[in-house]
């Protein structure tokens, strides 16, 4: 670029040593002194303009940082020392932050550092041996398990479910406070097959609710994300006719609008009248966005709450073998009070052949995370604690890591 610039115009390189006195009405020759005086004024004006921009950005910042949960350090068993590196899923970042705080307060010898780089990057770094464990929104794929055998000497990568959470469907329809939808209508709304809020299919699920004749603005994530992955898995499992697309981290649906990140889509729902989107429950709570109750076929529509998500997780079937605790979520469950659009994120480590230097610390930390204290601390962050039966199995797997 600089090359382009200097070759652009020969005069840029020439100097202003032209001695021609200015005679014109516009004063051309540079007056250094005057410039200096004005510089302060210009900086002040610029600072003013800038601070205006900052005020604007401050308005939109989301309030989703890990809350100051009271550290319950009673039952943490410390072990090992040094730095414990981990990276991956950003969906479990707030949980990790809270655990890191609590664990760090109890175990001063271990410094845990979890970077929310995204699941893909987290698994990558773990496979390269840079981190002790990875956080991931989905269980390892068979080819990833295969390549993990190189890193785990004598073993392979296993999935440990650790953080669950409901994915809420947030909506912004003027005059409507309570909305019930089922998988079929959700699939059609997000596939642009239902286009207005007073569609007969929505009316049928919401007798007595006055629905406006407003265009539906369905927002999805423009970036790849585990939230999209889980939401589309739900649509595919519970309403295969209305949702003909393959589930995945990237959105495959027809039409609709998109925005970057959970904070992006939730702020769109807040801004745009007629909008609907999906995001972690904490974003709905923080932005006071109303959420959809799901008609799952149970006697009552199910609200998106932490407890209802835990109930849905307990309906899940294990699909892993051996120490692998990967879960097969029951997206089409009809159990009373089970909210099926649920995300379970995993920690991924080797069953055998973990790095000797960090093994003790990793086991001790993961044990705390899966413990009753660790799990119940999550509730206030909008995460769903693992059901006791599953958490017990996870702890069993953790203590057998070697």
């Amino acid at each position, binding site marked *: *670029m600089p090359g*382009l*610039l200097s070759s*652009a*115009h*020969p*005069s*840029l390189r*020439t*100097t*202003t*040593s*032209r001695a*021609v006195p*200015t*005679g*014109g*009405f*516009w*004063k*051309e020759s540079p007056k250094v002194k*005057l410039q200096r005086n*004005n*510089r302060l004024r*210009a*900086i002040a*004006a*610029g600072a003013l*303009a800038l601070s205006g*921009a900052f005020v*604007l*950005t401050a*308005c*939109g910042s989301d309030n989703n940082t890990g809350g100051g949960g009271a550290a319950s350090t009673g039952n943490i068993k410390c072990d090992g020392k040094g730095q414990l590196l981990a990276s991956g899923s950003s969906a479990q970042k707030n949980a990790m932050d809270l655990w890191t705080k609590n664990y760090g307060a109890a175990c001063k010898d271990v410094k845990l550092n979890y970077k929310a*780089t*995204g699941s*893909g990057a987290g698994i*990558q770094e773990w496979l390269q041996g840079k981190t002790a464990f990875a956080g991931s929104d989905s269980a390892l794929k068979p080819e990833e398990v295969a390549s993990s055998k190189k890193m785990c000497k004598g073993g392979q990568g296993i999935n440990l479910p650790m953080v669950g959470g409901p994915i809420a469907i947030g909506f912004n329809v003027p005059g409507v406070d309570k909305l019930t939808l089922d998988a079929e209508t959700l699939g059609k709304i997000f596939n642009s097959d239902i286009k207005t809020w007073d569609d007969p299919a929505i009316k049928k699920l919401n007798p007595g609710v006055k629905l406006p004749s407003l*265009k539906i*603005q369905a*927002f999805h994530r*423009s*970036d*790849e*994300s*585990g939230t999209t992955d889980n939401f589309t898995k739900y649509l595919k499992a519970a309403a295969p006719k209305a949702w003909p697309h*393959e589930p*995945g*981290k*990237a959105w495959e649906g027809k039409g*609709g*609008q*998109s*925005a*970057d990140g959970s904070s*992006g889509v939730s*702020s*769109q729902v807040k801004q*745009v009248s007629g*909008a609907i989107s999906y995001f972690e429950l904490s974003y709905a709570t923080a932005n006071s966005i109303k959420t959809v109750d799901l008609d799952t076929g149970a006697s009552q529509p199910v609200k998106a709450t932490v407890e209802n998500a835990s109930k849905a997780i307990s309906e899940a079937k294990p699909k892993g073998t051996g120490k692998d605790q990967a879960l097969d979520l029951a997206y089409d469950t009809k159990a009373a009070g089970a909210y099926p659009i649920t995300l379970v994120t995993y920690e991924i480590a080797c069953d055998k052949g973990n790095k000797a230097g960090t093994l003790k610390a990793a086991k001790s930390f993961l044990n705390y995370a899966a413990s009753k204290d660790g799990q119940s601390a999550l509730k206030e962050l909008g995460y769903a604690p693992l059901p006791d039966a599953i958490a017990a199995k996870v702890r069993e797997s953790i203590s057998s890591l070697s």
Partner: protein
Amino acid sequence: MKTDIEPTSTSAGSPPQVSARSTGRAGDKIFLGLSRGSGIALLVIMAAIAGFLAYRASIAISKDEANFLTAFEWSTGSTPMRFGIAVLAYGTVVSSIIAMVIAVPIAVGIALFISHYAPRRLATPVAYVIDLLAAVPSIVYGLWGALFLVPHLTPLYTWMDKYLGWTGVLSYQGGAARSLFTVGILLAIMILPIVTSVSREVFRQVPKMHEEAALALGATRWEVVRMSVLPFGRSGIISASMLGLGRALGETMAVATVLSPSYLINVSLLDPGGGTFAQNIASHFKEANDNGRDALIASGLVLFVITLLVNGAARMIIARRKEYSGTAA
């Protein structure tokens, strides 16, 4: 840019001291080595980038089940990958053109105002504020765009739809104004400072003789600008615009924050949809697997090629203009 117009006072001021302080040839050699080394390093770096992009891109393209240049989809998560860059190329080029159409006339206007119209006590602060705009990080522009600009553009788009909707290109169906046109407006604001300050420097270089000659012929102020300043500055404006275009083509975070991407080309520029290369890479990179990354790198290669072509075209235009610009000052 300021450093280029240092007055050469040394040659006029101090007497020559050749014999007293001869440093021999060593300094010359070292300097030659350093500057030659920098030149070579630049070429090596460029070649390394191009080589890396081409290698990884070739891996991805060989696995692509769809047509890389014309497919309207981007699915790289599952094993038969299907992806194409048609939408991205269209979005990148269109949003940059919109940005140029808006920004260049305004930037030239500001530059003329600063260099030829404004009183000095006004011109200097205006110039500084413009330069400060260049220092705002692009993510801040993005947040400003998403939270302030987008809601405020909706009435404008509704108005445009009412009177210009028949064109198809400017029709608007409602919804959040997160379209390529919005991106163009935001990019225009972002490239304004660079185009303005380069143009301003060029306009300052217009030989006084030219302007005075025009004045002597009885030209008005506008005629002076038209007859002597603009012709002299034309190639400078072009190179300034190319610098701006470079930034617009590669802008990432601001676009990713403001645009509502999709893998479809909308006829209307006001309706949400489309995408750009840089935005697409930013959106997909974090969660992409190995194959997905190679696919993104392949799209990066296309952007690299487009940028090279644009720069080459700019150089050709400038080279042709040079002879007519009358830079004999």
